[in-house]
């Protein structure tokens, strides 16, 4: 691999026209990503999910996306035609959403959905797609792939549903995976097990990963680098292992207001928001 970044974003803005005027949800963010695990952390309304969706041009109408540069592996994502985008979505960049209950087709067997994701991008016979789907189910550590292949989404647990989603997103072998709160709906132990699968596959395949989450501690321990967003702007970018030594008052405030097992039970420091954060991003 060269050091050329896989994804470059410069001055990305997303706004929504409303009756009360234009609402700017993302206000000019810039970042670049190599074949690494990049975490985007922020509270609700910080613009972290819209940033992820902008990359795939999936911002819902009437949202308006502009950027100085939005480039993926040499392709200008702003100029690409819809047909080119369809080639990119799934095959080159794919996305795992928060809740498998709403992302899987409820009336189609899960194995067929995974096979379909493969056949959308590869011209292969059905039997071959089925074999690949079974291999993929095994890769996300599902014990009985044959049985799960035939199951409908309502017959599987949340953790298994999320593994099925990951299998579906990874079967076309993308270069970049965007995971938007992929494990927030799961129990802690299942959450970590799903992340371990994601971690191993990303490492084995040399993919880039954008991991969007509200959980600062999880991101710090899981990712290589962390981007901290607030009110549509990037407050700080730092190496995940140095997050505890972060400088920005917003990052410090977020870290301090978390209760911890080793805390002393006294009142938690409350985050004081500085209006200047709205005006100056990184």
């Amino acid at each position, binding site marked *: 691999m060269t050091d050329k970044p896989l994804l470059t974003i410069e001055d990305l803005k997303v706004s929504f026209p409303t009756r009360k005027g234009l609402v700017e949800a993302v206000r000019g963010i810039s970042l670049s990503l190599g074949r690494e695990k990049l975490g985007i952390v922020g*509270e*609700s309304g910080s613009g972290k999910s819209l940033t992820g969706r902008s990359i795939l041009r999936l911002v819902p109408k009437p949202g308006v996306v502009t950027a100085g540069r939005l480039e993926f592996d040499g392709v200008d994502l702003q100029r690409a035609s819809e047909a080119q985008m369809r080639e990119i979505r799934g095959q080159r960049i794919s996305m795992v959403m928060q809740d498998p209950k709403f992302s899987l087709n409820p009336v189609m067997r899960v194995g067929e959905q995974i096979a379909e994701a493969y056949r959308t991008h590869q011209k292969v016979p059905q039997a071959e797609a089925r074999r690949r789907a079974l291999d993929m189910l095994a890769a996300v550590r599902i014990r009985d792939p044959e049985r799960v292949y035939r199951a409908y989404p309502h017959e599987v647990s*949340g953790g298994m549903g999320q593994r099925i989603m990951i299998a579906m997103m990874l079967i076309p072998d993308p270069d970049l995976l965007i995971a938007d709160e992929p494990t927030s709906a799961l*129990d*802690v*132990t*299942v*959450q*970590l*097990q799903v*992340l*371990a699968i994601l*971690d191993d596959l990303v490492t084995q395949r040399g993919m880039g990963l954008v991991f969007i989450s*509200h959980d*600062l*501690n*999880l991101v*710090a*321990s*899981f990712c290589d680098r962390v981007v901290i967003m607030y009110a549509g702007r990037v407050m700080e970018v730092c190496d995940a292992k140095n997050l505890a030594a972060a400088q920005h008052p917003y990052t410090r*405030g*977020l870290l301090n*207001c*978390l*209760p*911890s*097992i*080793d*805390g002393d*039970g006294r*009142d*938690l*420091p*409350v*985050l004081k928001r500085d209006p200047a954060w709205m005006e100056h991003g990184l």
Partner: protein
Amino acid sequence: MNGAAQASSMIDVRGLDVVFGKGADEVRAVRDVSFRVPEGATFGLVGESGSGKSTVLRALSGLNHDWTGQVVIAGQAQTPKRDKAFYKLVQMVFQDPYGSLHPRHTVDRILMEPLSIHGFGDAERRIEQVLGEVGLGPSFRFRYPHQLSGGQRQRVAVARALILEPRILLLDEPTSALDVSVQAEVLNLLQRLKQERGLTYILVSHDLSVVAHMCDELAVMNNGAVVEELSVERLKSHAPEHPYTRQLMVASLGYDRAAIDRFEDFGVEG
């Protein structure tokens, strides 16, 4: 309170069982759960989804009638059906502040309803006072829930529970739908109200750090049963006994690739 032994425990649960369904579909959601909560303490119920922690709370609150066992609250043995007086003593705060407030009632009407059901006079003063206590000014009184943020809604839910001046609050994941900065505000509020009013809390949560921060004692549940009851000191010294508690503890410390491979499956009871 009367007898010495009785006075020390506000809530006393012995051999609580909750069974859903019949025959082959029978699910034992809660199995032989026992614990005591002294007056003025905060007791934590911790577990993953399906562990039965919320079901215990719903049985205590009178929302679920199908339980067996012994439940004594403030010295009174409880039957499955509760009378009006019970709800002056025990109130509940729910997880989702988006679902637990009537979308077409103003804050004023939401707070008025319990007062009129229980025949409290002096509503005007009580509503203003309780709004002040949860940190919402009088300007919030005539707003609708959709005009409030998640944290403000949860404050309204706490105000609604407190307006009847109960002695016990049952808290079902009260901050898990909130951002961490807002969670800190709501947890601080709950701690302050407990000090001021001498309340007794039962806090249900999946988050060990929240429970360690708020509680004195906790019970860890899995598969409907309590696997371990321990003091927060014991939790803080990282010395829980049961392997399930230890695993939850490791998981709550963050992502550690090597530790995950050692996770055991406690899902099915032998």
